[in-house]
C-alpha cells in the first residue's frame, strides 16, 4: 500500500496517492471531521514535501494536516488504522458483503471505532437490508452498559401544550445583559480621544478645525453556561427548560449547555441545530442517564475539572437548573459549588421546587449549595421564566456578594 512504498514521485504514483488521500478524506468527513478540499490538497502537498517514509510518518503527516481539534484525534486514529491496514481493508469490505464469512479474531472495540466504521463502509452497508441493520443497533444497545440507560420519550407531553409553551418562550425578549470589555469603540461621551478619527475629521477642514472624537469601552454579551439537571425528580420540567435553552442558544453567541444526572454531557452542539425538535431529539440521544438518579457533586466536579477552564472565561454567567435533591450529600458538594462559584462571574440557581409557597431549604443538598450562589430563583412556569429573562437583562455589576439563603428565608 501507499504507506509502505518509498517516495518515487512519477505521475502514476502521485495519482494513486492523491486518489487514496481523497478517499481517506471522504471517510473522515463522513465520520464528522471538517475536512475540506483545501485540506486534501494540503495533505498531498505535505506527503510529497516530506516524502513517504514509514507508516508512522505518514500517520503524523496526515495528522498534522487533517486534524484541527484535539477531540478529532481519536477519530483520525481509528480511520487511519482501518484505512491503511494492509489487506485488512479489503477483508473487511468482503466480510461486509458476505455476512457469514468467517472473520479474524474479534478485537476489543476502541473509542470512535463505530463512527469510523460506519463512515468508511456506509456505501456498502446501504446495500445490506435495512432491517438487519436496525436489529444490529438494538442488540448493541441492550448489551451496552449496566447502568440504567433510559431514554426519555419527548412525545409524552401533549402537542398543544408544547406548542403553546414553545411559542411563549420564543416571544420572550431574550437576555441582553452585557459586560464592559477592554476593547474601545467610538463613543460620544467617551473619555479617550480617538486620534485616528479626529485626524481624519480635521483633514476635511485642512486642519483649521480640530473636532475631537472620543472612545469608550465596548460592551458585549458574556458567555452563558447552563447546567441542567435531567434526573428523575426534574422529569416534568427538563423538556421545557431544553426548549428555553434552545431559544437562548439561537439568540446569542457563546451559550454552552450541559445536562447532568449521574454524569455530565455537553449538548451545546446538539442545541445549535436550528429545528427545536431535531435539537431536542439530539439531546435526548446524547444523554445516557435521562430520568435516572442525581449525583450533583460528581457532575459538578466533572464540570469544574474538564470544562470550567474552557467555557467560564471572559465573565461567564452560570445558570444551574436543579432541584438540589441530592441523596448522598457530603462536604464534596459544598466544595464543588464553592469552586464553581469562584470560577464564574455570576452563579444563578434556578429551582422549580421554589414554586411551593413556604418552601424551606431543608434538604441537606439544598442547604449545602445555597451559600455559594449569587441568586436563587424559582423556575416552574412561563412567568418565572420571563422573570428570569428580566433578571438576566439587568445591568449592574451583577456579581452580588454571596448569600442567597438570607433572601430566601426572608421572603
Amino acid at each position: 500500500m501507499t504507506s509502505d512504498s518509498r517516495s518515487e514521485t512519477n505521475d502514476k504514483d502521485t495519482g494513486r496517492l492523491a486518489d487514496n488521500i481523497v478517499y481517506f478524506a471522504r471517510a473522515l468527513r463522513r465520520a464528522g471531521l471538517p475536512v475540506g478540499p483545501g485540506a486534501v490538497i494540503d495533505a498531498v502537498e505535505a506527503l510529497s514535501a516530506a516524502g513517504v517514509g514509514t507508516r508512522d510518518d505518514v500517520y503524523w503527516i496526515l495528522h498534522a494536516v487533517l486534524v484541527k481539534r484535539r477531540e478529532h484525534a481519536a477519530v483520525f486514529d481509528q480511520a487511519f488504522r482501518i484505512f491503511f491496514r494492509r489487506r485488512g481493508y479489503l477483508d473487511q469490505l468482503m466480510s461486509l458483503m458476505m455476512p457469514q464469512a468467517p472473520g479474524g479474531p474479534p478485537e476489543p472495540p476502541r473509542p470512535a471505532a463505530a463512527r469510523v466504521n460506519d463512515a468508511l463502509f456506509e456505501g456498502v452497508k446501504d446495500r445490506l437490508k435495512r432491517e438487519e441493520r436496525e436489529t444490529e443497533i438494538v442488540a448493541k444497545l441492550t448489551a451496552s452498559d449496566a447502568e440504567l440507560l433510559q431514554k426519555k420519550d419527548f412525545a409524552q407531553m401533549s402537542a398543544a401544550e408544547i406548542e403553546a409553551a414553545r411559542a411563549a418562550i420564543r416571544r420572550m425578549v431574550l437576555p441582553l445583559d452585557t459586560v464592559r470589555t477592554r476593547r474601545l469603540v467610538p463613543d460620544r461621551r467617551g473619555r479617550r480621544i480617538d486620534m485616528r478619527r479626529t485626524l481624519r475629521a480635521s483633514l476635511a477642514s485642512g486642519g483649521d478645525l480640530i473636532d475631537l472624537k472620543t472612545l469608550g469601552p465596548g460592551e458585549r454579551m458574556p458567555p452563558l453556561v447552563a447546567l441542567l439537571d435531567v434526573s428523575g425528580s426534574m422529569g416534568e420540567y427538563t423538556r421545557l427548560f431544553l426548549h428555553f435553552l434552545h431559544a437562548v442558544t439561537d439568540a446569542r453567541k457563546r451559550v454552552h449547555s450541559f445536562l447532568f444526572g449521574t454524569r455530565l454531557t455537553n449538548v451545546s452542539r446538539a442545541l445549535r441545530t436550528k429545528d427545536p425538535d431535531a435539537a431536542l431529539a439530539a439531546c435526548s440521544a446524547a444523554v445516557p442517564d435521562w430520568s435516572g438518579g442525581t449525583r450533583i457533586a460528581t457532575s459538578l466536579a466533572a464540570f469544574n475539572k474538564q470544562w470550567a477552564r474552557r467555557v467560564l472565561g471572559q465573565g461567564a454567567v452560570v445558570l444551574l437548573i436543579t432541584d438540589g435533591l441530592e441523596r448522598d450529600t457530603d462536604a464534596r458538594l459544598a466544595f464543588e459549588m464553592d469552586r464553581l462559584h469562584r470560577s464564574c462571574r455570576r452563579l444563578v440557581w434556578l429551582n422549580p421546587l421554589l414554586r411551593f409557597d413556604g418552601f424551606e431549604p431543608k434538604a441537606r443538598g439544598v442547604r449545602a449549595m445555597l451559600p455559594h450562589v449569587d441568586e436563587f430563583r424559582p423556575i416552574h412556569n412561563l412567568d418565572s421564566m420571563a422573570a428570569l429573562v428580566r433578571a438576566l437583562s439587568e445591568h449592574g455589576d451583577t456579581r452580588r456578594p454571596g448569600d442567597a439563603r438570607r433572601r430566601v428565608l426572608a421572603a
Partner: protein
Amino acid sequence: MTKLPTSIDATQDLLAKADYLADRSLATVLFLALRMGRPIFLEGEAGVGKTEIAKVLSATLGRKLIRLQCYEGLDVGSAVYEWNYAAQMIAIRLAEAEGTVDRARLTHDIFSEEFLIKRPLLQALEPDTGGAPVLLIDELDRTDEAFEAFLLEVLADFQVTVPEMGTVKAAQPPIVVITSNRTREIHDALKRRCLYHWVDYPSAERETAIVRTKVPGIAARLSEEIVRFVQALRREDLFKAPGVAETLDWAGALTELDAVALDPATVSDTLGVLLKYQDDIARLQGSRASELIARLRADMTAAE
C-alpha cells in the same frame, strides 16, 4: 542564518541542538510548517513548552523573534499598526504655516510610511537580512473573537491592509507560531489555515531526558524519581496536573536543596513548586505523598 531542515529527522536534531527534545509527531508538524510555509497552531495544557518552541526555532534558525502577547481588548492599533498622530499634527500645522494647504497632497503626505508606527504583525512582514522572522502569537485564547478576524488575512496571505496606504505583503512569509491554552475554542476558520498540534505531556522516558538536559548536574537517580513522581501525580485526580515547566522548576529546587533522593518531608515542603492549587496540595500532603514515593521506589527496584 541557518537553512531550513530538509527532513523530519533533521528537524528533530535541530530542536535537540537547542535542548528542546521534541517527539516525532511535533517534529513532523514543525517540519511540514517550515516546508509548506504554514502557521503552526499549538494547543495544550499550561507549561508543556508551547511558547518555548517559537523561541527555540528563532534561536536555532538565527531568525528574529517577534512576539505578540494577546490580551483582552487587543486591537489593530497595538497589534498591527498605528499612525504617529503627534507627528501628523505637526505636519498639518507646518503645511498651514507655509500657506500651501492642498488637501489631496496633505492626505497623501501624512498617511505615508514616515508616519506609520509598526506593531508586531506588521514588523513580521518586513524583509529582514537574517531571513523571515519567527512570529509568536502567544495565548491567542485570551483575546476576543474580534481579534481573530484581523489575523485571518495575515495568516492566509501574509499580508496586511492599511486602508490609507494599501496592502503590505511579506516578500518572505514569516514562521508563525500560535499558542493557546484552550480557555475558549478558537474559530475553525482560523484553525483551518494552520497546522494543528496538541502538545501533550511527555512520556516518562522523554521527560527524564528533558530534566537531565535542562538541569545539568542532577543526580541520575533523583531525576528518575522526580519524573516518576510527577508522572504519578498526572494520573492522580488533581485540578491542575503539573506541566514540564513545573517538573523542571522542582528538579531545580531539589538540586538547590542538595537532595539526592525524594523523601516525604522534602516533597511535602516543596509541593508548592509543583502544584498551584491549595486543594491539590492538601490532597497530596502527608500520607498520599509517602505512598506515591513508596510505590515508585518499588517500581524502580522491580525495573532494575
